[in-house]
């Protein structure tokens, strides 16, 4: 059995290392070794579930060695990671790990998105709590905090409308992260569907010929709002997410296939466009909403102050 080390800090930035290790492992049964994990966010958790699903596609059920840290283990339990992991991995370690147990500090525990009904459930469950967190902890104006539910709904709809597969969503608030010394809300959304390249292939691949790639597909959807639907009202959900998150000085990034595209705020330093990443199916979305500082203007935009990809399609 080949061993895949899970990064100590498991988040969007370290996810590529996990994917590369999975690719390097090749065929056969694998063990995800998460013993050294010290910090994990929603993207990291749903990303690890997805990596387990990919590993299982070879026919062998992967194993997962749970973190040694009781604090991390408790957090994974509260986020319902262990409930979902149980169906994907053969779990090892973790001592007297418990199941997720009702009320906790969790904003949105890992939730499968398989239908539009699931999106209503997610919005119903999280909206009031999210408004409290955004207004009281992140200092967002009340009228803007209402948009959180709309952002969450649109990002989940992206799974159903473009992935043609199920996915997971999770969200949590943190007092700080490895990247930003401020309170943030993080949302992670992952699916193992056809990805943006697959979703847009029928309408755009012929136009781009040999240039057709994950990065071109991401640019088409993320920047130009293109979609496989002929309805002019379609394809605007991502644009609305970018606009709202940009107003809050936040970050949106989407990884699909071998590429990643992002609106990068000034507090982060990742490239707005990355190509030739190790392949991973579907799409993985990371959204970070930071607390406002002092007298930040309501119309502050990460898109204008930070960096956004701008290559023409």
């Amino acid at each position, binding site marked *: 059995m080949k061993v895949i080390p899970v990064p100590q800090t498991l988040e969007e930035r370290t996810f590529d290392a996990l994917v590369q290790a999975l690719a390097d492992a090749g065929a056969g049964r694998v063990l995800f070794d998460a013993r050294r994990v010290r910090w994990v966010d929603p993207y990291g958790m749903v990303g690890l579930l997805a990596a387990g699903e990919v590993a299982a596609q070879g026919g062998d059920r992967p194993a997962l060695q749970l973190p040694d840290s009781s604090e991390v283990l408790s957090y994974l339990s509260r986020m319902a990671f262990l409930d979902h992991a149980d169906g994907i991995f053969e779990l090892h370690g973790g001592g007297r790990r418990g199941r997720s147990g009702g009320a906790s500090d969790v904003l949105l525990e890992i939730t499968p998105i398989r239908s*539009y*009904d699931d*999106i*209503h459930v997610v*919005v*119903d469950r999280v*909206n009031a709590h999210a408004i409290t967190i955004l207004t009281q902890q992140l200092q967002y104006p009340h*009228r*803007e905090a*209402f*948009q959180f*539910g*709309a952002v969450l*709904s*649109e990002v989940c*709809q992206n799974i159903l*409308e473009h992935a043609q597969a199920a996915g997971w969503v999770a969200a949590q608030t943190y007092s700080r992260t490895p990247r930003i010394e401020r309170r943030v809300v993080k949302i992670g959304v992952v699916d193992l569907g056809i990805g943006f390249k697959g979703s847009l292939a029928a309408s755009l691949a012929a136009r781009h010929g040999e240039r057709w790639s994950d990065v071109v597909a991401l640019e088409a959807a993320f920047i130009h709002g293109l979609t496989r639907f002929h309805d*002019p*009202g*379609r394809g*605007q*959900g991502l644009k*609305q997410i970018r606009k709202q998150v940009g107003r809050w000085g936040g970050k949106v990034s989407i990884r699909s296939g071998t590429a990643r595209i992002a609106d990068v705020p000034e507090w982060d330093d990742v490239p707005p466009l990355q190509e030739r990443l190790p392949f991973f199916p579907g799409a993985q979305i990371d959204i970070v909403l930071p607390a406002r500082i002092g007298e930040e203007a309501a119309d502050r935009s990460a898109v204008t102050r930070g960096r956004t990809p701008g290559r023409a399609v």
Partner: protein
Amino acid sequence: MNGIGPVVPFRIDLSTLVRRSVASLYSHLVTRPTGQALRLGIESQICELGTPCVSVLDFSQVAVLDYSCADETVAKLILRFRKEDRPADAFFLARGVSEHHRDTLEAVLDRHGLLLVAEVEGEGRTLLGPVGDLERAAWEALEHRGSAAAAHLADDLTAPEPAISEALASLADHRVVLRRGSPETYYALTPLLAG
């Protein structure tokens, strides 16, 4: 009496209708299928009236409105009733619009080049969507008067009558004012709600 025949005021509470229009009891206006169901429910109720109406889309109890649902409910509803083969002679007015609804509504209206009369919290009655300065001025003047011919509004605005005629014709095409009679008289929507 408004002098233009019966135009029925018709209030639609979106938060209540969404509960009746879709299988589950949803309290937020999110997702495209919810918007489609809501639109069909509104269309059905309007068609049952069988008379010209000003439909009030009431957002006052709606907490979350996402772009996809707004596109299906509001934009496609207006598009449907702008067509020559519209199922009924209905006009629409949004009420109880908060700041967080407004952003979303403006986005879908802009996307399709549509206009909508709305009562926005803290702002009062306004015209949402991509509208020119002269059209907005003509609409505001008509709201003030209730009804008028182009010549009267041109006097009010000290603007050339042909330009005001053109602006009013555009507003009528967008169905944010009523145009009736010959010579043409234009009617603001909100006074019609009083019956």
